[in-house]
């Protein structure tokens, strides 16, 4: 695992991203702390996925810098250290659950007994041990997205970037996964988890609220509730959006 001593897992300065002709992120700056679960929240279309793609280094950017674990995003030295799970599952339907996880473990350098051990551990973590030898194409949508998550977890990357990992999962499984995210952060891993389910916000150490490519707020869950004088994250988000709109109107 790479050293997180500087305190920031991700440092973004002046990030500008165009997708098509649409300016998704006009000018975004952000520090994300290491060893924490950071929730990236916002309505769909707010730029969450684009920001995550920029952090992972798969997004072509127009300007600005993205530094991940002390290296420019997408550097070769980060390929073992950063795990990315896209919103739609990206695994092989015509392979078994176990073979999928094994292959993705293999490409990050695991071999032999260490690989077998990591695969078995990951199967338990995503609760798919019973389905290990089934083909992914025969699984339900929720199970398939857990295979996709497992494919990133198997290599135990220093930074995990998860795009809506809990969509379509039942409450028990969601609770278990958030407990796993917590354990990983306690063990020193950094996690960036996007969600548009506001009730997941309270499980994060830090929240970044995004709207139309602009950071509305970057604070802890308690600070969010205190600042907006609300008791639940949904109401807090609405209060922030209203405030942002008022100040925009006042300015124009």
């Amino acid at each position, binding site marked *: 695992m790479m050293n997180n001593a500087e305190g920031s897992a991700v440092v973004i300065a002046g990030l500008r991203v165009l997708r098509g002709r649409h300016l998704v992120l006009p000018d975004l700056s952000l520090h994300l702390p290491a060893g924490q679960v950071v929730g990236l929240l916002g309505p769909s279309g707010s730029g969450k996925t684009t920001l995550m793609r920029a952090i992972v280094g798969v*997004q072509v950017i127009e300007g600005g810098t993205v530094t991940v674990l002390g290296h420019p995003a997408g550097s070769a030295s980060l390929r073992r250290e950063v795990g990315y799970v*896209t919103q739609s599952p990206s695994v092989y339907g015509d392979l078994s659950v176990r073979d999928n996880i094994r292959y993705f473990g293999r490409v990050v350098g695991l071999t032999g007994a260490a690989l077998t051990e990591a695969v078995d551990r990951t199967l338990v973590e995503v609760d798919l041990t019973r389905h290990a030898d089934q083909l992914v194409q025969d699984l339900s949508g929720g199970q398939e997205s857990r295979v996709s998550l497992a494919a990133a977890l198997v290599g135990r990357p220093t930074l995990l970037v998860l795009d809506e990992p809990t969509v379509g999962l039942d409450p028990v499984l969601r609770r278990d996964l958030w407990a796993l995210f917590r354990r990983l952060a306690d063990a020193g891993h950094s996690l960036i988890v996007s969600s548009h389910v506001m009730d997941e916000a309270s499980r994060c150490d830090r929240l970044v609220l995004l709207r139309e490519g602009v950071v509305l707020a970057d604070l802890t869950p308690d600070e969010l509730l205190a600042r907006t004088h609300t008791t639940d994250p949904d109401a807090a988000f609405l209060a922030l959006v209203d405030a942002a709109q008022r100040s925009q109107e006042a300015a124009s």
Partner: protein
Amino acid sequence: MNPALTLATAARVLRQVRTDRRTIALIVVVPCVLIGLLAWMFSGTPVFDRTGAAILGIFPMTVLFVVTSVATLRERQSGTLERLLTTPLGKGDFMLGYAVAFAVLGTLQALVATAFAVWVCGLDVAGPLWLLVVVAVVDALLGSALGLLASAFARTEFQAVQFMPAFIFPQFLLCGLFIARDQMPDVLHWVSNVLPLSYAVDAMKTITTETDPYGTVGADLAVVGGFIVLALALASLTLSRRSR
């Protein structure tokens, strides 16, 4: 580039193919059926002895072109390729992994088709039989390499399948199967000189007619090998770790 990751990728691709038994059956059986049909059609004439070997060279290329281009297109569309490119897996490992896996399939096909042509249909071969299999496997690799390249230009599976007539049929028409290449109009002869299948078919024909074909066949295979390397190199340029 890392040979262990190349092999891991090849093993993964073969494991995927193994779950699709019908595709394996089609790859092995269809060439035999068509070779049998050709032999039957021309029974009592010398035509099969002239064209049978050429057909053995054309099959592996055509079939593996389609299989590879669809397989890699699926990999691009499912997001698994983008995911792999965020890992230490090199582009070359990805390309060669596919090439190795499909060379294995090509070998299986070549062994069965050659055995069927020679022992069931009575194809006359003056040179060594094993060399026919070698040429067929190199042709399979050529098909895979062209398929990897073509898949970069396809947005849908429909397009990928349509690239078969676009990339393969012209080579098929000009490879010397219907009329000897040196009897074609000059321009077409020149064109056929820069198409890889022409050299593969030349090699197959030489093996059927000459008892000591090594020198000529070796030169033909070197040309085909050059095309394979070129196609793989161009294809790996189409794999980009970043996208818009």
